[in-house]
């Protein structure tokens, strides 16, 4: 096996993991703290791509577009939370599923109405073109390196926010015990809005960040959303740390599986069988991983403290 290719794919997997983490971080907090099934989180990914993409085209700068997108997504997130989701907290999960499914339909159609059915292409600025040499004969696209760096910075920032600030303490308290947080005199509605706003920014950032590679398309958030579900389930609902570990795990295993599983299968199977089983099995790999982890740890790898204790 070619080790250059191996490392390249490893980095690709890492980069997918970063995108997944940006999606899953907000989602896991929303699920954990608000006990809300929010299917519309994928829509925020899409909206981030379209809004950020438009801002980029208007300002003619991806950086400026990204910077302006942050308050825009925050506002959209808070708006969605206040108008549509707030009334759902005390409802059953079934109600939440249905209502947020309705939100997806609405957002997809609204996007189609505003931006048209073709989607939106955002060019990569010149200074982000090209590759970097990572040594040992490995070169890697500069922009993908930037994605990884940004993702790691965001993860670090989020970690500091959750672990070191008063806001973070309240979030953690909320994730493990909502009544307790309420009893501490926390203004729960404001806390929820803030968390949701931050989640929206992260999802939007993830959407915008991959747009120069793929382009913004209607429904683009849905596949990512389901992968993010897998991440959250593996990591443990409500745990940012779990989301980080699980996102990288998922990203790398998925990417590596798609690239190398057929090669690996060749060791055990005749060529034609390996060739047909490879793609099929690799598309199932992360789900099998999820099932396996759940079988042994139904609460995921990092269940928030207090979630397992009964009384």
């Amino acid at each position, binding site marked *: 096996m070619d080790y250059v290719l191996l490392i390249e794919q490893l980095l690709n997997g890492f980069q997918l993991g970063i995108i997944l983490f940006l999606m899953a971080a907000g989602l896991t907090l929303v699920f954990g703290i608000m006990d809300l099934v929010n299917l519309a989180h994928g829509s925020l990914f899409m909206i981030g791509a379209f809004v950020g993409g438009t801002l980029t085209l208007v300002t003619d700068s991806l950086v400026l577009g990204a910077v302006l997108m942050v308050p825009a997504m925050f506002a959209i997130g808070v708006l969605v939370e206040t108008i549509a989701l707030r009334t759902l907290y005390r409802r059953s999960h079934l109600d939440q599923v249905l209502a947020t499914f309705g939100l997806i339909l609405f957002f997809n159609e609204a996007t189609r109405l505003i931006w048209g059915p073709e989607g939106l292409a955002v060019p990569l600025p010149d200074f982000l073109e090209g590759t970097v040499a990572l040594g040992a004969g490995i070169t890697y696209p500069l922009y993908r390196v930037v994605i990884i760096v940004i993702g790691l910075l965001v993860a670090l920032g989020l970690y500091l926010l959750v672990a070191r600030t008063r806001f973070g303490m309240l979030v953690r308290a909320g994730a493990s015990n909502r009544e307790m947080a309420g009893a501490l005199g926390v203004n729960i509605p404001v806390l929820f809005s803030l968390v949701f706003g931050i989640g929206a920014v992260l999802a939007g950032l993830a959407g915008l960040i991959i747009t120069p590679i793929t382009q913004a398309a209607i429904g683009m958030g849905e596949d990512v959303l389901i992968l993010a579900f897998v991440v959250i389930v593996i990591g443990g609902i409500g745990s940012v740390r779990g989301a980080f570990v699980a996102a990288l795990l998922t990203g790398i295993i998925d990417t590596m599986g798609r690239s190398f599983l057929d090669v690996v299968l060749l060791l055990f199977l005749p060529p034609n069988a390996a060739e047909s089983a490879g793609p099929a099995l690799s598309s199932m790999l992360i789900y099998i991983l999820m099932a396996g982890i759940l079988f042994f740890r139904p609460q995921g790898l990092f269940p928030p*403290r207090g979630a397992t204790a*009964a*009384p």
Partner: protein
Amino acid sequence: MTERPRELHLEARGLNKRFGGLQAAADLSMRARHGEVHAVIGPNGAGKTTLVHMLSGFLRPDSGSIVFGGDDITSLPAPGRVQRGLARSFQITSVFRDFTVLENVVLPVQARQGHSFRFWRSAMRDPSLTGPARVLLEEVGLGDRAATLAGHLAHGEQRQLEIAVALATNPSFLLLDEPMAGMGPEENRALIDFLGGLKETHGMLLIEHDLDAVFALADRITVLVYGRAIASGRPDEIRQNSQVRTAYLGEALV
């Protein structure tokens, strides 16, 4: 009703259970005899409900063992314990609110008749289910409420139903987690009489805050503080115990 061997004692041996920093059971041993009411008292957070959860199979102790009728049942799941005749009631009323009173009692009757992989015949038209259920409802005084939705019952009636559901499993031993919680004095007295009548045929472990009820019913009392049994004995011994007085009764009597 099928006959069970009636001489089943329930024993806890060295139970330990820890939730994070909270020690809910610390080397906890006790023996509840058949034909007696064994009350467990103690301040809030002493680990009383945890004890019931462990004895009934809803929580696994970190260490220690539980013996019922001479058999080690520590690793037996909750439904299996019920099938052996160890039933429980819940502190927070947990009847099926959108079932009728009769349906609530039919379910446990059905449970003791073997598996429920029966897909055809209507359960509520099966006299082998509704018959015993109605008899039991008469016994606990809910006979005329059979068709009412359990969620529409008054609080006291729900508590009665809670006991009826436990009894309908045909237990030889009852774990009662605060059966009097939230009841008025009238209902209280009626329930004390009713439980007293069950003594001959059942063993009972009673968790109760109402000390009048405890001293009226109990043959033996164990006092829990921070998961530890600080005293165990006959009611008059417990009354005299100075350690108990300072730890618990003193507070409660103030």
